[in-house]
Structure formats: C-alpha cells, structure tokens
C-alpha cells in the first residue's frame, strides 16, 4: 500500500489500538465493545456449556437434537466508523516556510486513520478548505489510507473554513483536527464545539484535536505587524510592548476552548506542531478509564 512519505509513520503506529470511549452501537463485528446484550442478531459460534454459564444462553434446539448442552456465543464487539474533519483554512498554513500546522494535521489524520483501519473500522476524511469541501466516505477497503493520503496532499490550505456542516454528516466517531481559529463572530450554537456536542448527544464520539504552532505560542522577538491570513484587514503590531498582552490573551483563549470542549464531553487535546506525531498519537488513543466503562 503506497502511502507516499508516510511509510515510517505508519510503521511507528503499527499495533496501536484506539478503543472507543464508550460502547458502540451494535453492528458489524469489530474491535469495540458493543452496547447490545442477550441474543445476538448474528450467530458467532457454539461453546460447550460450563458450570456457571447462564442457562438462558443454552441452545435448546441443539440440546433436543443432540442431547448435548451448548451455549451460543454472540458477538459483543462492533466496528466504529471514524471520520476525520480536517481544517484546511488559511490559518493552518503556518508557519509560511514549513506549513508545520498543516503537516501535523495531515500526519495525525493518516496515523489515526491507520490505527482505526487496523481495527477494521471504516475510515473517511472530510477536508474543508475555504468554500471547497473534499469528502471521502468511510470505507474499510485496503486502499483507503492511500486515498486519504493522496487527498490530503492535494489540498492547499486557503480561505476561511466552516467545519460545522462537515461534522453533522460524519460517522460515529468524529475527529476534528483544527487550530480553533474559526470566525470569531459566529453564533455559539453554530460553533464547531456545539456541533461536536450535538454529535456526541446523538450517540457518537467527538474528538477535537487543537493544533497549535510553536511559533504562535512563542513568537520571535522581532517587531512585526501581525496580519491575519484569513482577514487581511486585521493587523496588529506585535512589538515588545504588546508581546505580553498577546501571550496572556492567547493562553486565556486556549484555556477557555479546552474548558468548553471538555465541559461538553468532547475528547480534547492540544497538539503542538513540534511534537513527534508518534508520541501524540499514543497519547490521543490512550483509553480514558471512566469513558471506557460507561
């Protein structure tokens, strides 16, 4: 499977599992614990009755035919379709020289998609770049990772993206990978976090991976006229006198975003573009004890 320059990354995340945070709706057999109990709609296998088994699980017809006690084993794990909603707005193309934020978003998408795909979960991607939306429906075919990689590599971040529409049509697990710099004047009900919260309320699993650049956290000491790539009218002088105020405002905003996301039950994680993707991925997929047992 040709996945371009991501071969080493895929090798690094081989064997990593990404369990669902809560039981998934029943469906095709998969790696995630299903919500359904009792008689399964599908028969998996027989097992001889052992002391302690629930007698209600005996296959009485087989007992009548063969005079031997067996119990029916039903599948209690199902698949969890995963869709990655990737923000490809102009703010993701930063820093200009390396596009580190966009590179991190792509690599996270591919790595997590590979992990999900390895568990037989259907994976798909929706890339929103300005007014354009590129969608790959969740699939389990073997070539889906390569297709996702090609699709991501073909996109150049630009414009201002509205991710909310992509979230409402996503699969059971929705992972939004974005820098959070959405339109500041958007109504709270139309925000990405609200959309993710609604998705979770419908039974889905919502993840928000907040991509931040080191250059945004710790800008250079050079005095610059900071210009918003998505709004050319917004220019602010980042000079020694305003640097402290910038850091404080940015930190406060990040804390508020994290707090709001967690309060709405989202799986929130802030990822910095200079961190190794392999390490980030393992942190992101680590099960949360309370969520897993719910």
């Amino acid at each position, binding site marked *: 499977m040709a996945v371009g320059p991501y071969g080493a990354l895929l090798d690094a995340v081989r064997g990593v599992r990404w369990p669902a945070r809560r039981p998934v709706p029943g469906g095709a057999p998969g790696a995630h614990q299903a919500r359904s109990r009792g008689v399964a709609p599908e028969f998996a296998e027989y097992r001889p009755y052992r002391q302690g088994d629930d007698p209600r699980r005996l296959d009485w017809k087989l007992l009548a035919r063969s005079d031997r006690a067996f119990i029916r084993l039903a599948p209690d794990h199902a698949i969890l379709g995963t869709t990655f909603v990737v923000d490809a707005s102009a703010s*993701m193309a930063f820093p200009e020289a390396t596009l580190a934020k966009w590179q991190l978003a792509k690599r996270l998408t591919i790595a997590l998609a590979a992990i999900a795909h390895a568990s037989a979960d259907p994976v798909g991607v929706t890339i929103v770049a300005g007014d354009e939306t590129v969608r790959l429906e969740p699939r389990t075919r073997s070539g889906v990772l390569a297709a996702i990689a090609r699709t991501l590599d073909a996109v150049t971040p630009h414009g201002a993206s509205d991710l909310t529409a992509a979230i409402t049509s996503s699969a059971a697990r929705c992972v939004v990978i974005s820098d959070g*710099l959405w339109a500041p004047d958007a109504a709270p009900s139309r925000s990405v976090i609200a959309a993710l919260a609604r998705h979770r309320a419908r039974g889905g699993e919502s993840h928000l991976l907040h991509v931040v650049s080191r250059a945004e956290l710790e800008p250079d000491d050079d005095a*610059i006229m900071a*210009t918003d790539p998505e709004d050319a009218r917004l220019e602010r002088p980042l000079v020694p006198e305003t640097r402290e105020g910038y850091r404080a405002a940015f930190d406060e905003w990040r804390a508020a975003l994290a707090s709001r996301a967690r309060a709405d039950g989202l799986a929130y994680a802030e990822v910095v573009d200079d961190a190794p993707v392999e390490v980030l991925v393992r942190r992101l997929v680590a099960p949360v004890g309370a969520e897993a047992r719910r």
Partner: protein
Amino acid sequence: MTLLAPSVFALGVALALVVVALHFLVTRRPPARLLPTARFVPVAEARAVSRASRPSDVALLVLRVLAVLLIAAAFARPIPDAPGPTVRSVVLVDMSRAVADTVAALDSARARSTEGGALLRFGSGDAARGSLSAALVRGQREAARVARGADSVKLVVVAPFTSAQFDAATLALRAAWPGAITLVRVPMRVDTAVGAAAQLVTTLADDPIAPALRALPLRRGAQAVRIVRGRASAGDSIWARTTGGALVEWPLSEGDARADGVVLTGAASRATAGAAPATLIAPLVRLPVPSAGLVSARWRDGAPAVTEDALGTGCIRHVGVGLPLAGDLTLREPFVRFLAPLLAPCGMGAGTLLPDSALTAFAASDRAAGVAAPLLVSATSGETRLAAWLLLFAMACLLGEWVLRARRAR
C-alpha cells in the same frame, strides 16, 4: 553672491541640520508578517521612533535641505557679486557761476569718473553758487545705486569750496557718508571788472545811505548792484533778471524806531569761524522781509533781517532794516561794514574760499576712501530679483518633495 543678512542664512543652516537629524530618527512601521493568532495581539500604535544609522529617504532629505537653504538665502538679502574688484566713483561737479571755468571743471570731473560710476552736475549755470548740501544728498543716493555690482564706491566733489556753498545741513550730510570724500578744488570765479558802486534809486534828496556808498571803495569783481529805496519796480526786476545784477530792495523806514541790533549772518558764518560778524546796534526800524530765501542777516532775536532770492540771472535782496533819516549812523564804520556785504554780487558773492585745513577736515582723509558697497546697497530691484529666483527654486524643491511624498504614500 553676497548676503547682506548672513545671520538669517546661518539660521537656515541650523534648520537644515535639524532636518538632517530628523531623517535619522524614523518612525518605522514594523514589517508585515502573517500570524494566524493576530487577533490576540492587543491594539496599539503601529509606529515606533527609532534611530537609524543612515538617513531615511535621501531624495526627500536633499529636497528638503535644499528648500530650507534656498529660502534662508532669499531672506538673507542676497546681492550678486561683482566679477572682480570694482571701485566706482560718484563725481559731483559744481557748474554754478562761482566756478571760474566750468569746462575745465567738467574735464577734471570726467577724468576722475569711472566705468559704472556717475557724473552729476550741481548748481546750474544760472545759480550763483552750487549747494554742497544738495550735492551730497544727490551723491549719496547715486552711490547707493552704483554700489550694486561694485566692491566699493568713492565720492568726489569738484567745486571751488567757498564758504557760501556751506549751509546748516552740510556738515550733517557729510557725516552721513561713512568714508572719505575726495575734494578737487577748482578756481573760483572773480569778476575783475571794476565798476561803479551800487546805483541808488531813491526819492530822498538826502538819503542816509548815499554817504555810506560814497565811502565804500571801488569794488573789484562787483556786479552791478541797484539799491531801490522803496518797492522795486517791474523795470528793476527786468534789470536784475537780464543783467544778473543784485537788486537791493531797501524800503524807507516807517513806524516807530526801536533800538535793536542786526547781526550780519549767513552761510559764511560757519566757514569763517573766527571772523567777527558785522553787528549794527542802533535805533532801527524792523521792516518785514520774505521768510523764504537765503538769510544773510538776522535781528538779535533771530528773525531774518536780510534775505536774498534768485531773480532770473540775478537776485533780489530784501533788506528789512529801517534806517533813521537823521543822524550819523550811516557815516559810522559799523554801518559801512554792514552795508558792504549787502552790495555784494548775487549769492552774497561767491563767499570766501575755505581754508585748506577746513577742507581737509571736511574731506576726512583719515577715513577709507571707498565705502564698501554692501553698506550702501538698499533694497533694490537687483537684490529683489535674486531673492525672487532663490524663492522660485525653493518652491520648485518643495513641489518636488510633495510629489515624491505623494508617490511614496501611494
């Protein structure tokens, strides 16, 4: 180019230095750079003053400095420089009847005139003498005009320099000229004709003046003098106008006699310091005389007693001293001394020649002969033209600066 007000230009230079210094202090707008989190940067002033190692915008700097210097030069009263050391002469030549040979005097004056200078005549041919005061006024005005384009200006006066040519203003006008004056003395005209003394036209059989007239010696150089003891007639006026004689109008006394004194004064009084003026103290009647004209005798209280006016080629002398009809006043020596100048030719004679010592003092030869041209030049059209050109160039520089700034702003 010479600046008459260099301090103004110095101020302009100081201002230009300030402009240069300001171009090393620049308010920079930081370079624009993309930052997705720009919305979190506090709103602040986008410019900051900093010191640059090199002046910003050299073209604008040059235009501004040039404009400042040109404006300063325009207001510093510039005058164009002469191509080389130039001394010009203003020559004043007396052409009055006091000069024995006016042609020779004119030649002498021409010999002393210079290219670019001026040759001025004073004292017209029919004047008894030339007034040095009037000549000095004209000469100084002309000197201010010829000073443009010259390094210095000299003043030369060609005249007989008699006491009669001086008046109360002469010395003050001389002092107004800051340098020495070259004085060229020409011979004074002396009338060698020996003729009878004055004619006496009187209605009195025993006019008291007659004996005094007979007592006077024959005068050499005396023009014809007619004394009219009453109002002068038209014929008398015609005589004076046509012959150049001196008509003395000396009315007979009427009114109460009052003891009073008459002091013989006149233009000669200063030049002849040391000589005692003629004084007549007697019961004299004060008669009215015209206030205009040359005053040659005054009463003790300063009122004019004898005045003289030009009358064609001659003159009319009004005597306001009423004599007693009886008595021996007119036989006394003081009266004869008083009478003699009244019978002098028009202009009270040419006066006496000024002594050489007085001339030297008047010339003030210890001062520099030439007066530096900038001291004489006043606001003239030449200076104004040069200042106007400088202002025009300054306006052009300012226009260029504005255009350049407008282009940079776009």
